[in-house]
């Protein structure tokens, strides 16, 4: 409301104030509701604050009511659900093809550097080791 009033009344040369006044004059005429620009802005700001103030009473919507954030929160809840859905997809992808992370330091590496090793490779190594072991036992 403060921004609206300030631009509408005080911004004589700037494009913001000119745009606002041109829109209001276009829809409501040169003297909107028979009032000059300043009085119209004061009436509009006051009326808006009256309505929101009454709606913020505990008997109505309560002090947390805001005509601005109610819209945003409605959309934010939708985007939040989408984010959760995306997170689930990412988790599934990771479980399918995520590389297995092993500490290189435990295998003789230095400085605790983390080395990525594909999970499929370790499985193949295990198979090879098993085969070698079984061959050695049979021989």
């Amino acid at each position, binding site marked *: *409301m*403060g921004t609206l009033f300030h631009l509408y009344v005080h911004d004589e040369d700037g494009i913001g104030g000119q745009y*606002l006044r041109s829109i209001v004059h276009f829809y409501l005429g040169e003297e909107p509701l028979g009032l000059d620009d300043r009085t119209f802005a004061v009436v509009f700001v006051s009326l808006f604050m*009256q309505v929101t103030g009454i709606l913020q009473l505990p008997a109505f919507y309560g002090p947390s009511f805001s005509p601005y954030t109610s819209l945003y929160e409605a959309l934010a809840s939708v985007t939040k659900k989408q984010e959760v859905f995306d997170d689930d997809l990412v988790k599934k992808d990771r479980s399918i093809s995520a590389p297995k992370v092993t500490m290189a330091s435990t295998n003789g590496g230095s400085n605790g550097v983390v080395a990525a090793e594909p999970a499929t490779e370790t499985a193949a190594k295990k198979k090879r080791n098993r085969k070698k072991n079984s061959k050695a036992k049979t021989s």
Partner: protein
Amino acid sequence: MIFPLLVQYLTGNYYKSAEWQAFGMAFQGALALRNGRNKDLTMSSFHAFALSTVIAFGGGWMGFIWLGKPTSMITGGDVTWPVLIFSFMLSHCTPSDIGCKLGNFLPVTMAVTSLAQLFRSLGMIKFITTAFMELKDNPSPYYPTPIIGPVLYGTMLGNMGSFMVKGFDGHLEKGMPWPFQNGTYIYLFLFECAPICTVVLSLNYHHSPLYIYLLLPFHVQFKSNQYNTQH
């Protein structure tokens, strides 16, 4: 018939307008204290009274200091202080608590809220105008009118009381307080930018004013060009 009366009321042009508005603010602040922290009347009287003045007129206490002017609690003290004392007595010191019960009666609450809201809206306009008069001869090189400074000054009016009572974190930790929203949101919301605002703000509405001011010049330029080509 009704419209001229409505305009008179909303612009504060009626008999003893300033006194009625100050009473609305003072009684609302005293009632907020009486229904909240001092519900059981455990606070000392002077502590409770001083707190009610801060809850009701936090902006009046601190606002004008930002521009190096005497606060309205001093310049308008002859109206404000008697009204504050009367409101405190009415909400805290009446027999059978009748003043508090009357204040919590819905029609009376609505009338007091209406007067207080009128005080807030006209106060915000007065603060913005005062700051603009101070700054209008020194605009930034980027825009011919000082915009953010006066709006910030007017917006802080409604936040001073909460900052003083709750502290910085206490006032802001639950997201953007209503007085901040009211000072900064409306322009784009009203003028055909609601879809853009909604999408951008839904990403993280705690940071929304920044996005609004980033979007504002582009949107205004676009709409102005559109309007000029149509006419």
